[in-house]
């Protein structure tokens, strides 16, 4: 459901499949656990393989944004499919400059 990779102080999480309230709870735990132990400068969430997302995905991204700020790092969100971008666009996340 989620693969992570750590290189050059960047922690990348490759999200996969359907992102809803159910899966977001598990993904959040995996990412936060890795981020707390590795202390990356940047956390990168790669959405390329996400086939479905509802507003729980926005909560997940906003939560990781706050989490990375607390840890003194930053967040990037990459490879967002068009259908999912629509939901991010409604959220004001664009203004935070994390979407690529």
């Amino acid at each position, binding site marked *: 459901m989620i693969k992570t990779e750590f290189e050059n102080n960047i922690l990348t999480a490759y999200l996969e499949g359907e992102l809803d*309230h*159910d899966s977001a709870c598990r993904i959040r735990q995996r990412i936060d656990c890795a981020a707390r132990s590795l202390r990356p400068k940047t956390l990168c969430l790669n959405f390329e393989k996400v086939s479905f997302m509802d507003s*729980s995905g*926005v*909560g997940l991204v*906003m*939560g990781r944004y706050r989490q990375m700020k607390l840890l003194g790092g930053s967040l990037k969100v990459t490879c967002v499919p068009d259908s999912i971008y*629509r939901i991010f666009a409604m959220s004001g996340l664009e203004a935070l400059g994390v979407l690529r």
Partner: protein
Amino acid sequence: MKTVNQMRLSFPSKSRNEAFARSAVSSFVTSLDPTLNELNDLKTAVSEAVTNCIVHGYRRQSGTIYIYASVKEDNTLTVKIRDKGVGIEDISKAMEPLFTTSPGEERAGLGFAVMQSFCDRVKVSSQVGRGTTVTLIKRIGANG
């Protein structure tokens, strides 16, 4: 207008049923020859309403979620999603984008805004202490 098809579902308010509920409603409309975009919009809206029943309506306690879906002659789909949970005190406030009563649980307050933008119409009726019914109305095949 005549109802040409209908279905009912009820299931316990467990988060693992979110995926089941949205794919069941999406399968129900297959015979209407929906576009992939329409299916994705419908699945997203149903997912929002069902998640709200679980997270807010029943506050993670166990309860039953009821779905009734019907299709009219003109391919208009109506999906009613109902819980017998805590209810909503101020519906118009609840529907404001970014309004949430659970910011600590990483909720964005976007569920109703998503339902409204992905469906043609959204109606909410609720009674405190009795529960909430969300009605999603969407014309399928409108662009085809």
